[in-house]
């Protein structure tokens, strides 16, 4: 026990003292916050990029009716959305006109082109051309504005006084509330999404990062032959356990620092902007789940990475062997949209019970929509069982591999190690 402790302590202290640990601890949250909040912050401050649309209105009745739908302004106070209603020369060829304006959009003279056909008021389709079709917000809002303009025009045609059309066509605002087990929370689902993304990414990154460190640390000892001195004093399993615990403790320390920083930061934000703080607040129970799933996921992958480190004879070989393991860790991140769309679907439920995906998948689901308690319990039981199984398997590979220099084992050799050990 003393020796495991000695190994744990060395592993822990050496890592915590390293510059890379301190840098990582500081930079990861900065990076995460940057990625998550910077775009929102920029958007809220500048009111977004200016949008300048060329409008070709074949109905000749919508001029000036689009602007009232847009109230946002740029930093200098000018309106963000500007519409250039094109004068259509008599006898103009629509095709030539369209192509000419498309060229202007390509040249960057306009953000986009709005093509309103003559039958737009009687069921025709309005077309929008833009270089950047990816901004769904602009598309949706422009479409909505055209609809409103068309509606007011139709109302006037049906004899409604123009002064009343504004009130009649007014949009109905929608506010979203999140229904939780405990009650109702305003602010919708942004915080769930942000929380999920944050937790899933950090979980994935740290499991991978610390798992790889286990593998590298074992390889270092193997290549420098320190392992023989260690093996003289400790059994292989003690050595493996000591390394995994020591490196895991570094991870937990990092989380503790982040947790404290987040708490302090949260208090600060609450002071500055209570509404924002509420929309993005993360319940403390989430942190508990987070640490538990980190430890379970980490122990499972650390056991695999320990075997990888013991098998490899060089850094390059280790990297090749790490590949398949890394892919296993990434899979839940690839399936992120699927989980978001349907966190309780059968496929996601099954996947989140497979130990290799469990940690990250469950953490995503817990953030989006709390899964039934039995599923959380089952995922943890399965993870613990898998960790024990994997540790037993890895210990066998580790025991033989750690003293094998010069050559990486072939698959049949590996099977023999596992059988014979």
């Amino acid at each position, binding site marked *: 026990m003393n020796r495991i402790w000695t190994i744990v302590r060395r592993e822990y202290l050496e890592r915590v003292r390293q510059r890379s640990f301190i840098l990582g601890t500081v930079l990861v949250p900065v990076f995460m916050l940057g990625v998550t909040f910077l775009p929102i912050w920029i958007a809220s401050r500048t009111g977004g990029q200016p949008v300048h649309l060329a409008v070709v209105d074949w109905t000749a009745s919508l001029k000036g009716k689009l602007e009232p739908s847009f109230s946002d302004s740029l930093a200098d106070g000018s309106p963000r959305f500007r519409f250039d209603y094109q004068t259509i020369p008599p006898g103009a060829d629509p095709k030539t006109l369209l192509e000419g304006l498309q060229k202007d959009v390509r040249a960057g003279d306009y953000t986009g082109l709005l093509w309103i056909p003559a039958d737009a008021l009687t069921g025709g389709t309005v077309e929008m051309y833009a270089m950047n079709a990816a901004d769904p917000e602009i598309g949706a809002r422009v479409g909505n504005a055209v609809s409103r303009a068309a509606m007011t025009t139709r109302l006037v045609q049906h004899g409604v006084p123009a002064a009343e059309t504004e009130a009649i066509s007014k949009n109905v605002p929608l506010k979203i509330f999140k229904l939780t087990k405990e009650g109702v929370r305003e602010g919708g689902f942004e915080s769930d999404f942000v929380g999920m993304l944050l937790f899933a990414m950090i979980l994935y990154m740290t499991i991978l990062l610390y798992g790889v460190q286990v593998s590298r640390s074992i390889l270092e000892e193997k290549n420098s032959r320190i392992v023989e001195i260690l*093996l*003289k004093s400790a059994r292989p399993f003690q050595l493996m356990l000591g390394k995994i615990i020591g490196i895991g403790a570094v991870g937990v320390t990092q989380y503790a620092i982040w947790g404290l920083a987040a708490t302090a930061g949260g208090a600060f934000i609450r002071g500055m902007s209570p509404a924002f703080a509420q929309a993005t607040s993360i319940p403390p129970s989430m942190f508990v789940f987070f640490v538990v799933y980190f430890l379970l996921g980490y122990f499972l992958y650390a056991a695999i990475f320990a075997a990888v480190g013991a098998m490899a004879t060089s850094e390059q070989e280790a990297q090749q062997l790490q590949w398949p393991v890394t892919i296993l860790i990434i899979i839940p991140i690839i399936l992120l949209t699927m989980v978001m769309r349907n966190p309780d679907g059968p496929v996601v439920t099954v996947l989140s019970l497979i130990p290799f995906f469990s940690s990250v998948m469950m953490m995503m689901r817990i953030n989006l929509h709390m899964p039934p308690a039995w599923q959380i319990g089952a995922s943890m039981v399965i993870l613990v069982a898998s960790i024990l199984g994997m540790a037993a398997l890895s210990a066998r590979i580790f025991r033989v591999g750690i003293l094998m220099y010069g050559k990486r084992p072939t698959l049949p050799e590996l099977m023999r190690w596992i059988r014979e050990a």
Partner: protein
Amino acid sequence: MDAISVRDVTKSFSTQRAVDEISFDVPEGSIYGFLGPNGSGKTTTIRMILKILMPDSGEIRVLGKDLDDKTSNRIGYLPEERGLYRSMRVEDQLVFFGALHGLSTAEARRRAHVWLERFDAGDWAMRKIQELSKGMQQKVQFIGTVIHDPDLVILDEPFSGLDPVNTRLLKDVMLELRARGSTVIFSTHQMEQVEKSCDRIMLIHKGRKLVEGLLSRIRQEHGGDVVQVEYSGELPREAVKDLVESINDQGQYAEIRLRREEDAPALLRRLVGACDVRRFQIAEASLDDIFVRVVEAAK
């Protein structure tokens, strides 16, 4: 009592037999050499003594018992291709080695400084291993091996790659350990290292024990038929052909192995007639010679 007692130990790796039915005893307080060419089974034997590897069959007792954690704390081990944690500081590294062998952190730190001072290396305590020269790293490695004041020290090829200063230092440490009653075992393929410092040796070849025992007795048994000659002029090879088994002639100096020990006076008479003999000495066989002969005899 014997520091180590090995009985009929065998170890195979897949199809290859690395150690084959080896038995030997290392008396307490001796300096004991394992000799043999690379790949002869020295390292495997050492690893089995330390329980890094398990023998397929046979029995090993260390310091009077089956090696357990407590006994293991009384052993110092220097592996063949030794290593240190490159990015670790010297002091931390030594404290770690000490703690692995049951020392408290404070005691390990105190001893680390005593040793570093002794090796004129007190200034390096806070330096990282990777900043040290190879010779300095070797010193740190010795200290790590003996910091817990072991009763039994096992050194695997300790002299390979050492500069002359460190070679002498290591020999001093070995003698000092013996003087304190500790047992020192080391393996080497360089016979001349053994000749100068070992009480007892074992010759291993292809996993089998060839010769084992007191070095002086082995010399007696296998020596006596080699003559060292210093001369000038030309060695009369033809004239002595019938007396001589082999000649290792270096121009001014020759080692001549006789067919029969009692022919030495006859050889001297014939040499004196043909060249200018400055020295003629019946020598103990070198271990190199003994080794070659024993291997040939075993074939």
